[in-house]
């Protein structure tokens, strides 16, 4: 078997058992790996109506065929489960080194089932797999857990863990690895916490066999040249990280401010990628075999660590009205330590700030900590309180939708399917709005990054205000992304690489005969499987929508002034292209075509 080991681990925490099972190669190829393969297993094994925080939910950590190979950025893995935040299928991607290490240990994925009656962690060292007591690290933050475990596990192990937020089942809890890399979104950390599983450590010494070494060398050479020569992956991301987007999105007047009340931030320059590079950057912090190295390692006062990313800077910065980069770095640090998703945490604080602004929090326990837009203290202190579920932080830990709903104003939650929207105002970027509304895991930018054509002009420039052509572009981006998320490579390679490049890489590694269209078809199959699961889980097509504010309230000022998102004019065409019928349900013909 090439690309895959053909083996995975099934860990049952109720029974306390670890079994090695065989992976069917044809099934693996059809669903690629990562997001696709994990979703296929999940859908086949779990009732879509399962309570996401019950022992009956499963958590799958799954690599792709390119993970652990010599392919550039081939270190990624996916955490697939049912999301307690959205009720949809969740698949959260992470970089770093853990995914590659799992592959070195000889496994394509691990499936975690049941629930332990006390805190445990799983230690993997090649064939040796043990469920161990974790009571001594329960309650510890990410860095402390990682460093404590490192003393009792094989040298050079990689540690994936949850922080206090995951233990306390915050619906915004992330799964962390290498201390600052996160499978961040959709509350996957809460599922781990609900199983009393604190960490999974892994050390491996095996190589991943590939079908054609010579061919792979050639393909990698071609792709590395493309990555190096592309302005974004060769210059922009290495020099500034993702934070370089702050000024770009803000200049376009699509950088949401104060919980999307306006969309151009006067303090943008103070939280820009340029400033981060000038004042706070210590070094780059790349993932496994990554020639792009967008990861940042920063320091402020006595705090240092990985990040912050663009989305994080926006969530705690513009969206909370804060123009203090030092405070943002600290808030990001505490998200990593608590094991919290930075997007949902920052934007939930922003939503709470709006509740406060509207006078709805008068009777709440704020513990003397400010909760006003613009407060640098607020973003740091509320992050900690959310992580520990203290005071109002307890309600905030379940995300902005449940928070705002508790005060009778769910419309103040800037979320889709209860997951918080990221850093692009879809009123000023129409196609991104369609992509948000139809994302299979709720509010998310990396399920179909329409910013690429609408703002960055990659692979070609679309008019961001126009409605025509947005449906087909969104569909293609979504399908393409589903494949990349399944392959084991980082999505950022797609700034430089096209579908035929991924096909060539897949073929050389797995020994298949896929072409560019095959890449998109495999992605479409995955997208539809997720959709079918969501429908069965009770997520109706009526939820393919955006917050009322973004559909009805015009952007008050700046270059996108006067605009709302015109979703209803794009959605019917999108459904039609997807073969989903006017009711948004995949037709039998399309499902048959895709082999579902």
């Amino acid at each position, binding site marked *: 078997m090439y690309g895959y080991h053909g083996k995975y681990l099934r860990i049952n925490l109720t029974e306390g058992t670890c079994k090695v099972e065989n992976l069917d190669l044809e099934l693996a190829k059809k669903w690629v790996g990562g997001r696709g393969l994990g979703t296929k297993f999940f859908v086949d094994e779990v009732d879509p109506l399962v309570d996401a925080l019950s022992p009956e939910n499963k958590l799958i950590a799954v690599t792709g065929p390119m993970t652990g190979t010599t392919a550039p950025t081939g270190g990624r893995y996916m955490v697939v489960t049912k999301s307690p935040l959205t009720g949809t299928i969740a698949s959260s991607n992470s970089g770093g080194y853990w995914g590659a290490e799992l592959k070195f240990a000889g496994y394509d994925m691990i499936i975690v089932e049941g629930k332990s009656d006390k805190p445990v962690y799983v230690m993997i060292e090649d064939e040796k797999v043990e469920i161990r007591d974790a009571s001594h690290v329960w309650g510890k933050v990410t860095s402390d857990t990682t460093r404590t475990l490192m003393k009792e596990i094989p040298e050079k192990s990689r540690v994936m863990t949850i922080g206090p937020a995951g233990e306390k089942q915050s619906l915004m809890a992330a799964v962390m690895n290498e201390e600052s890399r996160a499978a961040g979104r959709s509350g996957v950390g809460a599922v781990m916490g609900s199983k009393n599983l604190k960490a999974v450590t892994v050390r491996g010494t095996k190589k991943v066999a590939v079908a054609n070494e010579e061919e792979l060398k050639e393909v990698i050479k071609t792709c590395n040249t493309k990555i190096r020569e*592309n*302005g*974004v992956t060769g*210059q*922009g*991301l290495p*020099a*500034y*990280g*993702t*934070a*370089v*987007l702050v*000024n*770009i999105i803000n*200049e*376009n*007047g699509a950088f949401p401010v104060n919980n999307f009340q306006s969309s*151009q931030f006067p303090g943008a*320059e103070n939280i820009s*990628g*340029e400033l981060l590079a000038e004042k706070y950057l210590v070094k780059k912090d790349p993932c496994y075999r990554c020639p792009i190295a*967008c990861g940042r390692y920063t320091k402020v006062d006595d705090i240092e660590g990985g990040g912050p*990313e*663009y*989305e994080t800077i926006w969530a705690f910065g513009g969206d909370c009205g804060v123009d203090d980069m030092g405070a943002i770095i600290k808030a990001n640090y505490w998200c990593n330590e608590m094991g919290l998703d930075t997007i949902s945490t920052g934007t939930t604080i922003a939503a709470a700030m709006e509740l406060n602004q509207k006078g709805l929090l008068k009777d709440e326990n704020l513990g003397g900590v400010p909760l006003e837009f613009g407060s640098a203290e607020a973003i740091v202190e509320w992050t900690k309180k959310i992580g520990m579920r203290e005071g109002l932080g307890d309600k905030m830990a379940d995300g902005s939708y449940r928070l705002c709903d508790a005060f009778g104003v769910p419309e103040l939650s800037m979320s889709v399917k209860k997951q918080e929207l990221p850093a692009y105002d879809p009123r000023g970027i129409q196609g991104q709005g369609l992509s948000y509304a139809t994302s299979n895991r709720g509010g998310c*930018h*990396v399920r179909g*990054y329409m*910013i*690429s054509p609408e*703002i*960055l*002009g*990659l692979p070609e*420039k679309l*008019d*961001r205000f126009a409605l025509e052509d947005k449906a087909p572009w969104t569909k293609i981006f979504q399908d393409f992304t589903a494949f990349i998320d399944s392959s084991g490579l980082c*999505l*950022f390679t797609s*700034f430089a690489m096209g579908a035929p490049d991924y096909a060539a890489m897949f073929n050389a590694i797995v020994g298949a005969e896929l072409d560019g269209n095959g890449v998109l078809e495999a992605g479409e199959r995955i997208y539809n499987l997720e959709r079918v699961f969501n429908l069965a889980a009770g997520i109706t097509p009526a939820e393919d929508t955006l917050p009322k504010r973004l559909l009805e309230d015009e952007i008050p000022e*700046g*270059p*996108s002034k006067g605009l709302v998102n015109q979703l209803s004019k794009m959605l019917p065409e999108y459904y039609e292209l997807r073969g989903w019928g006017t009711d948004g349900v995949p037709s039998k013909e399309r499902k048959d075509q895709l082999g579902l």
Partner: protein
Amino acid sequence: MEVKIRLFATLREGRGKVLSKDFEAGVTPGLIIEDLGIPEEEVAILLVNGRDGDLEQALEDGDVVSIFPPVGGG
């Protein structure tokens, strides 16, 4: 007439962040980048008053031109 030019990322090196300059009527973003010694292929995103701009468009007094090299993220 006066045009404000905002530069970002690597384009700032040796040029600064914001420049306000007097130009003859009819000046275009194309002429401005030539004046600043920025090679055309280094201009990936060009905005005039925050909206998609064109290298050949005639600018007006008070316009703000934002210029980015190839950068991106997500």
